[in-house]
Every structure is written in C-alpha cells, then in structure tokens.
C-alpha cells in the first residue's frame, strides 16, 4: 500500500463537544508583528500563521456548495511577497460556473517610523481572467507589502459542482503554523474522504467528527449533517525535488469523492462511483467512451485497402497503428474520452488523447484485432488510488491488445513511437483495462528502457588526428529520442551537418543512419570521422581522456538526502567500447585499474575494462541503471555511484614514446 495514501472510515458522535473554530478576523498579536523568522524553518520568506477553511451546502436553490477561506500570513522579506498575490481558480462547465465574493483583506505593516499601519484591500482591485473554456481565475494582490508585514484575507466561493467537494491542501510552498478545514456534509451525501501525503492530522477531541441535527433543509426536507474537522500544525513547506513524479503524490491534502446521494426529488438513493462494477457499466454506456470504441464502421473502408493481403494479426495491428498515428495529430490535450466523438476528430485530423486512442481501439476492432482502452493517470497527474474508484483521478487513455500470447500497450498520439512503446508521460504505476462486457482490472504499466551501445574504432595518425569510425546502436527510448532529434531536420544530410558543426574538432567524412523510419527496430548511426586531437606527435608524452563523448563531470544529485524517490520512468544502460591503434613508437604508460562498482539489490553498476596489446588498446565502460525508481534509502548509493563515475572519468591516459 502506498504510505502516502489513507482512506477514512468515519464515525459519528451526536455529542456536544466544543469543536475547533475559525480565528478572529482583523487581529494580530505583537509577537506576530515582531517575528523575525520562523523557528521551524529559518529559510522561509513567509509563514502562514493561521488558516481556516469551511465547506458546506447552502439550502438555497440548486444546493450550491459554499467554500470559505480565511488566511493570515507573516511575510518576512520581499522574496515572500508572492504570498501577497492570491489566485483562486474557478471552474466552468457550460452555464455552470463557480463565483467568488465576500473578498476582504488587510495588510498590517510598520511604517518608516516603526508605527504599525493598516491598509484595507479595496474590492475594486479584483481581476478575473478567463483562462480557457473550463476555468477562470480570480486574482487580487494585497496593498502595502513591506518586509515584516502581516496580511490577512478571506473570500467565499459558491460552486454548482457539488459532486466534487472542495479539496484542502495542507501543504504549500510556504510553511504553515496551523491549518484547519471544516467540512459539513448533509446525510443525503456520502463521500469517500482520502488523505494524501506523509503528515498526520491532529487527533484531539476538538477535531472529532460530530453529527449535527437538521442542519440542512431543502424545500421543507430536513436532514442531519456530519461535521468534520481536519487540522494540522507545524506543517513544513512542500519542496519539490528533481527527478520526482507529480507532487500530488506526496503533498499533504484531503480529497473528497462523492460515492452516493439521496435524491430529494424522487426519494431514491443514487449510488455514484461505489464500485468498479458501477464505473464499468457507466463508461461502457457513455456516448463519449464506450459508444466510441464501437465505431468500427468508420474505419472499415479506410483500412480495407491497407490490410489487403495482411493475414498475420500482428502485421494487421501494426498497419492499423501506423494508420492512426499518421492520420490524426494530437492537439496537446489529455483526456480519456472524446468530446463529440471520434468521427469529428478524425475528419479534422486533429484531436485529444481520448479521440486518438479510442479511435485506435475502434480501428483495431475494425481490422479484427482485439483491443481495449486502458485508463491511466499521467506522471504529472499523480498516482491513482486503488482503494476506491475515483474517475477524476484518470486523465488519459491508452490501448491494450493481446497478440500471440503477448500484451502490447499502445498510444497513437505520437507518430515516432514504436509499436508497444508508451510515451514517458504514461509511465506511471498502473492502468485500468476497460472492456465493454467483462469486469475491468488493473494492469502494470511496464517500465521502459533506453539503451545505447557505442563502438569507437580509431587510429592515431602521425599528423595528430584520430581517424576512424563511431557506431552507435540505440534501443528503446534512446532510439525514440534520436528519431525525434533527427526528424527535426529536413534530411539526414542536414542532421549530419548539424552534428558536425556542433563539434568543431570533429569532421564527418561519411555517415549513415539506419532504422530511422522502421520504428520497431534499433537505430544505428555510423560516422566515419577525423578528430583533431594533437597538433603533432613530437612530445614524449601525450595525455588522452578515453571518455571522448558524453563525459560526466558533474553529479546530477546535490542533496545529502531525499524525501521522495528518484523516478526516471525508465531504466537505462550505456556501453562504450573504444579501440585505439597508436603509432608503433607509443604505448600506454598508465593502464587504468578495472572498476566494477554495483548498486545494492542489482540496482545498477559502473564498470570499466582496459586491455592493451603493444601499441593498441581497448577501453570499455558501461553505466547500467536497472531500476526506473530509486527509493530515498537507495539514493545515497546512487549519488555515490555518480561520484565514482566522475572520479574515474577524470583520469587521463598517458601515451609514452618508447
């Protein structure tokens, strides 16, 4: 189980307990005003002194969900001023939109004479940007920010989207001394409540869930509520680390997912996302999901001429995959369903992920190849919880097909992906395989590999130039990345010219790139080159660094320890073999020791091997990183591996004249 995820089971108490409350607006203490830094985090430019949020259903028409937010922040210096600009995202869906009102704010600051002054925020300075179809943002900024000032503000958001109860993020980029969220939920609604992140909620009596009688009424129907109080104190700022996945996976926050509600109009109980069985049923009947994968007929005529003569299932699948890859361009929008159907998107040759990959399911089916949509959440969207189905946690769809006892996962949104390769954004834990008539199930998204094997063969000539060939064999993501790089140029020749121009000491005499367009195999580059290495060979000793290309000189890991895993999404390996034939009078004076350094648990290794015979030597090295994810416990070893790589790559060989 993911230690960053916790599901609540709720208990109700009908007892009169003093419950945690909002703090008083418009007041500050002398201690707060005189605070010079935050003792728990002396690097903080600001600290939230107190934060209160409250969400409840209004008994008004439409039962809007009301969210109130009240914050008081101490700002130590100008780097903390960004806490003084507030942005509140407001959702829109057609005519339904969230609205903000009741904004008030105040800044307390010391003037040049050391007297505390107070400036009220003027409501006319609220701006609303219409970001795009589904979101507005209300923005305002506090007046008179000075080093050491205190700002306080509150606002209210009224939302028609009662199925998504307002989430609460305890952690932000500013540390918080105390944060309290009160969620009032009428008994007509049942939510799954999920706490993410590694921090603990306060458990004192004042934070126990309480029941309240008849707190909510709608046209005369009354019902009880449960009042939840979620609170944390001394909350550290959330600091992102490099090479980590979505911060959502680790940030301490509370999320709510509606599981069922009592319909006030007909008296029935409406179950929502209670079980996967329900989700399966809903999606298979959704016109923009299950309805689309059935649209085989749209592709039949288009594919028929391409499939003529292809009898092997794998061949047919590859032809269809290639067709979809080349016939629709991704518009950079993630989705797991369509918006108006695949026909519209394919006719326009442009579409969202849902259009492209549900279209791929339909097209494969049209060719008689089994295919199922797989719901996933991209790396930046966070890991999906496995405890309860939450459809909003998915944002992407790929395609699964089983051919000849082998499972392939496909994404047709990128024309350079080979058959069975998913783009990096998809490599995130597990996906849910959906089928129109069978229960859905989880599937591991296989990690991918980037592999490169290079062979360098040189002769050191009397004129001081190294002459020979470079051959690179690229597999998996490494081949994909190279294809992407080469395809940016109009021709292979223009790519090679660029390769040559970027390396002034090197001159390409002849080059060849194989496997650029046949995406399923490796890519091979061969360059016949001449490298200006020495002006002449007159010196009695010459030094030479055998790490000719991609020498690592800086450790990518700087932190002493990490809080979150290093997640590269792929394993990688690089092997280089360098053979150099020296002029007869030379030999290697300092044959380097062979190195073989491994990470614990088969996590990876760095190895070098040196072999010389008279005036010819072979030096090979390999860097293998076998895991795609390294835990914080493994981190120090990974960092040390790089340290050793750098140390060994510093050492020059010395060629001595005999």
């Amino acid at each position, binding site marked *: 189980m993911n230690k960053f995820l916790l599901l609540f089971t709720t208990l109700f108490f009908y007892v009169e307990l003093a419950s945690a409350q909002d703090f008083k607006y418009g007041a500050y203490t002398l201690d707060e005003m005189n605070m010079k830094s935050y003792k728990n985090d002396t*690097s903080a430019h600001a600290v939230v002194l107190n934060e209160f949020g409250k969400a409840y259903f209004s008994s008004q028409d439409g039962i809007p969900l009301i969210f109130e937010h009240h914050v008081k922040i101490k700002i130590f210096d*100008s780097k903390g001023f960004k806490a003084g600009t507030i942005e509140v995202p407001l959702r829109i869906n057609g005519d339904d939109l969230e609205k903000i009102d009741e904004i008030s704010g105040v800044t307390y600051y010391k003037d040049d004479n050391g007297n505390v002054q107070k400036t009220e925020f003027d409501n006319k300075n609220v701006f609303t940007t*219409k970001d795009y*179809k589904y979101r507005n943002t209300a923005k305002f900024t506090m007046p008179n920010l000075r080093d050491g000032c205190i700002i306080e503000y509150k606002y209210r958001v009224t939302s028609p989207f009662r199925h998504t109860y307002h989430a609460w993020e305890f952690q932000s980029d500013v540390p918080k001394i105390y944060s309290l969220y009160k969620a009032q939920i009428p008994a007509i609604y049942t939510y799954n409540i999920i706490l993410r992140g590694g921090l603990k909620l306060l458990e004192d009596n004042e934070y126990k869930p309480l029941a309240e009688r008849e707190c909510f009424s709608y046209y005369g129907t009354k019902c009880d509520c449960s009042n939840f109080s979620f609170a944390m104190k001394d909350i550290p700022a959330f600091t992102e680390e490099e090479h980590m996945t979505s911060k959502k996976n680790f940030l301490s926050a509370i999320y709510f997912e509606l599981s069922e509600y009592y319909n006030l109009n007909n008296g029935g109980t409406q179950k929502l996302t209670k079980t996967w069985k329900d989700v399966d049923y809903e999606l298979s009947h959704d016109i923009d999901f299950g309805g689309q994968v059935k649209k085989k007929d749209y592709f039949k005529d288009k594919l028929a001429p391409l499939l003529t003569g292809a009898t092997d299932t794998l061949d047919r699948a590859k032809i269809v995959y290639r067709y979809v890859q080349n016939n629709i361009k991704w518009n950079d929008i993630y989705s797991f369903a369509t918006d108006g159907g695949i026909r519209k998107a394919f006719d326009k*040759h442009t579409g969202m992920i849902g259009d492209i990959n549900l279209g791929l399911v339909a097209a494969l089916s049209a060719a008689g190849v089994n295919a199922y949509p797989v719901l996933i959440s991209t790396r930046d969207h966070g890991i999906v919880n496995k405890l309860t189905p939450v459809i909003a946690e998915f944002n992407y769809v790929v395609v699964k097909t089983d051919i000849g006892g082998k499972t392939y996962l496909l994404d047709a949104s990128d024309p350079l992906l080979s058959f069975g390769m998913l783009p990096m954004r998809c490599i995130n834990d597990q996906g849910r395989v959906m089928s129109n008539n069978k229960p859905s199930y989880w599937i591991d998204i296989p990690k991918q590999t980037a592999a490169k094997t290079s062979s360098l063969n040189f002769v050191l000539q009397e004129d001081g130039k190294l002459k020979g060939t470079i051959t690179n064999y690229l597999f998996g993501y490494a081949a994909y990345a190279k294809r992407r790089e080469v395809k940016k140029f*109009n021709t292979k020749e223009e790519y090679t010219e660029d390769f040559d121009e*970027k390396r002034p000491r090197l001159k390409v005499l002849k080059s060849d790139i194989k496997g650029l367009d046949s995406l399923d195999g490796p890519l091979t580059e061969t360059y016949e080159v001449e490298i200006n290495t020495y002006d002449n060979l007159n010196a009695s000793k010459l030094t030479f660094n055998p790490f000719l290309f991609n020498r690592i000189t800086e*450790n990518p890991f700087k*932190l002493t320890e990490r809080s979150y895993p290093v997640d590269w999404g792929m394993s990688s390996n690089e092997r280089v073999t360098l053979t150099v034939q020296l002029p007869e009078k030379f030999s290697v004076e300092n044959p380097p020791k062979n190195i073989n350094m491994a990470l614990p648990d088969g996590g990876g290794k760095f190895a070098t091997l040196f072999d010389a015979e008279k005036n010819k030597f072979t030096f090979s090295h390999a860097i293998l990183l076998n895991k795609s994810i390294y835990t914080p416990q493994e981190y120090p070893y990974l960092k040390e591996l790089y*340290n050793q790589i750098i140390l060994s790559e510093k050492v020059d060989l010395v060629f001595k004249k005999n």
Partner: protein
Amino acid sequence: MFCCAEFWCQCATKYDVSLIPKELLPYAGAVVRNSEVNYEVRDIDYSNYRVKKAITVFNESGDDAAEILIWYNKLRQVKSVKGIIYDSSGLPVSKFSEKNFDDYYGGGRSSLFEDTRVKVFRPGANGYPYTVEYECDIRDNQTMIISDWVPANMFGVAVEKSSLTFTCKPSLAIRYKEYNMPVKAVIVTDKAGFKTYTWQISNARATRYEPYSPPPETFLSMVKIAPVTFTYQKIHGSYNNWNELGKWIYDVLLTDRDILTPSTIATIKSMTAGLADPKLKAKKVYEYMQNKTRYISVQVGIGGYRPFPASEVDQVSYGDCKALTNYMRSLLKAVDIESYYCHVEAGTNRIDMDPDFASMTQANHAILCIPFKNDTTFLECTNQKIPFGFVGDFTDDRTVLACTPDGGRLIRTPKYNATVSTQVRKATLNLDAAGTLNGYLQTEYKGSQYDNRDQIIDELPAERIKKFKKIYPINNLEIDKLELTQDKSLQPVTKEHIIFSADNYASAQNDKLHFSPNIVNQMRTPLREVNNRKNLVYINRGYTDDDEIIYKVPEGFKLEKHPLNVVLIKPFGIFNASVTFKDGQLIYKRRLQINDGAYSKDIYPDMVNFYQEVVDADNYTAILGKN
C-alpha cells in the same frame, strides 16, 4: 458540372508540394506559399486587417510556423477566420473555422491582469507534408499601434511570396520605413484620394540559427508604419518624429499623473532636508521608493500605455513599470529634481530606438532618467534591490525616448564594457593526498556582472547553500561558510566569500592525483561551426573573467604533465591560461576578455577556434605524482 470540375482541378494542383521551387527547400521545415496582408485604415478609429495565408509544412519542425495565433482585445476584434487543409498533392482533407479555435487568456504569468486574449488553432492532416490555407478578418478600432510587417521572421521557414497592402483614407497620413527590403513600396492613389502602399517579397530562402548574430531587427526584411494622427480609446494624438511623440506622451499620457498628497510631499521633503547634493537626494528618494513598492502589472486598454496616477501607487505601494517610473518622477518633483519618463526596449539584446523613425511600437518598458548637471542617471524602478543608477543588462547601452516638457529626446543609457564588467576570483586551496580539497574562494562582480548572484542573494542561509551547490559544479562540495555582500554605491560591487571542502576533488589512482585546476569557471561547450554564414559576427556585451587559484599540494608531489600555457589575442577577445608549479604550489591563472562589437562574418571560423581552445584549456587535467 464541367465548370465545377475545372475549378476543382485548379484547387487540387495549386498547393501541390512538387510546385515549390527547389531552391526554397534547403533548411526549410515549412514554406509560406503565399501571404497577403491587407491593412485598410477606413477611419481614424476603424481599420480592417485581413490576412490570407497558405503555408506548407514538411515535418514537425515546421508545425509551429503553421500554428494560427490570433491576438485580440476589446479594440481588436476577430470578425471571421476559416481555412482549408490540403495533403501533399494539394487535395483538400478538411476545413476549419472559428469554432475550431481554442480561446485563451493572453496575459503573461508575470502580470496580474492583461486584457489580451488569443485564439489558437494547430492544424493537422494525414501526415507530412501538408498545406494550410486560411483567411482571417480583424477589425481594429484604434490607429495608434500598427504592427510591423516582417515577412520572414522565423528560422527554417522559406517564403515563396508575401505581400503587404496598406490603404488609408486621404485625411490620414502615414509615415513608413523599409528595413532590408529588396524592393521599395509601390504607391497608388485612387480617384477618391485613397493611397495604397504595396510591398512584396518572393523566393526568400529559409535561414538557420547562427550564433553571435546581431538582433534580428537589424537584418530581417521589415516595414514599420506609424500614423501621423491617430486615436486610441477616444484619446487622440499626432506626431512626425520623436520630439513630437515624446511631447504627446508628456502632455497626454503623463499629465496630472504626478500629483501627490501634501503629506507624502512633506515626508519626502523632510527625509531629504539635510542633503544638499541633488544626487544624494535622489538616491535617498529612490531607496524610499524601492523600500515602499513592488512590481505588479495590470494592463487594461490605454492603461497599457498610460501610467496609473502617482497617488494610487502611493496608496497601494505597487504598480507596473510605467506606474512606478511615474511615481518616482513625482517623488523627485516634490524635492524639485527634474526627471524624464523614458520608453525603452528592454532585454539582454540591446536594441536602439531608430533615430530616423519614431513610433509607439519600439518600446516594451519604462525607466526614469535624471539629467544631473554633469551626468545623466537612469533608474530602473521595478526592482527593489538594484543600486541607484545601475541598469544592468536589461536596459544598458541603447537609445531610449525621454519624454520631457519640451518634447521627446533620444538619449543613450550607460554602457558596461569589458573592462568594467568584471568577475575577479582568487582562491587558496589545500589539496591532500586523498584528493580532498579545502580552502577559501572569493569573487568580486562588477559592471554588468554585478547581478550574477541575484538568484540567491535574497535567500536565507540554508537555502543559499543548497542553491550554491548548483551554481558551482564541484563534486561533494561542502560549504562551511558563505558570505555574499553587495556594495550599492555608484560603482556597485557584489562580493562573495566561501570556505569549503570537497572530497575526491582529485582522483587518486596509482599514487597520482588527477584534477582540473579550473575549479568553477569551465567553458564546456564549444562554439558551433556555421557553414556558409550569412550574418555579421556580433557580440552583444563584453566582459572579463579573471581567475587565480593557488593549490598547495601534498609534500613530495610534483606536476607530471606539461604545464598549461595558452595565449590568444583576437580583436573580439583575449584569453590567457597557465599552470605553473613552484615550491609545492600549483598556480592556475585564467583570464578571458570578450569585447563587444560587430565584426566581419569572415572572422567567425577564428572565433570557433578561439572558443575551442578555451574549452580545451578549461578541460586541462593536471597530473601530480611523486616521481
């Protein structure tokens, strides 16, 4: 029926990819087949702007050139847009119209609010190549800003044919200037007196990125047009030159914007009462303004060009560049110091206002100029930390439009040349037999290098050290002490002093120590070659880096490799690097001076060699041994 078939045939072949002239194919990811921009000024507050464009895309690198972005706001409204996508043989594959566009907020992340919006469409087809043909109609209700026409403004895009037709009503004169245009305007006056100007270019090849090129504004084909009389949201104006434009800005945009409350005036007066020197007075006021305000940008309508009143800034203590510059001007006025509000094109690329052609489209920023008797001082008002009179590489060495009561004047901002913009580093370090390094390293930054440490100067100690490890690529760097101080006098200096250690700095193998004597100032990537270079060699800004590092090496160790000694002297730069060994000390010296200026393109291969030799010298590994 026959007629239709005939028509279809024409359409089908018009955009056949094989019709593109072969000489346009090299380096082109896309080719503009035809672009017709029609700008028709019907009245002072009513223009039609019509674009018809067809572009063929060969591969992914050309996709961006075919993306359709339409910027609009309250004054500039999209009337219609529609298009057709063709396959490689010129057969239509799909159509699109305004409803297929996505509509976004067009403001930047650094603004709180802007009233700009943008419609976006990324065309797709059944593979490459494909051709997009579209037509867009815009109505513009202002005449103050007329966009520049730059027919070939992207790398990797060739142009088969592109034209601008500009028509305006008889009573509305325009001024224009052609830059790097192969042909002059064709001017026609019709019976009603409407003047039409037409420019056209054809068969322009795709260009490649060339390092050390002058700003694109100086070599691209371009036409700038400015109105003589104009209107913007009911504000009228007229100008023929910088003097008149500056006068209009002063009289119309700045008028009554400098009024402060008596109490603020009193505060400023009493604050500076003891100071006689006007420069010291101004410095005091500037520091007050910096301490009080912060940069927040809000751009709505004419507010994109006119500053908020000083009294408003005084109340809320924030504003954009215009508001803060005008506020500073108003504060100085309170102590009888005259200053000029200036328009400038800010950015690390230095771009001058064209002395021969005045227009509102040549600036993106405002700064303040104080004409002291013997010296003209410029103030950047959006930065709370910058020293008085320091403009840095954001607005240095370029002409700006100063708006004075007597009209506009072009004035040049200060230049920081190679001898002024220095980074001088000295270090004394102990290296032990295990390869561990420890000691101190101190650096002074001046001129345009003064702000090299601005990223971390305001961080608190723990965070500073964390960020510093990313700046200095020393493995296993442990910083025991880090001091950063800034002297904000008229010749500002940033001083850095660190005491550190680093395990395994040298690789200890077979009783030898291998290490790089250039500890933190290594140039790693050589300058790329450019075959058939087109542009002049242009160095935007000069600087000098000076490093002197002394390594005390362990007892008995000596340098076992040829010492380093490189001396390069070129018009564009000087480089010295040396390693000497004496009395148990390895002394490393490096000096790199780069001189700003424009040089012949023939010098470029020389420059590639120069930088390659710098990279090689920086890559020098010392080998110490006991033999």
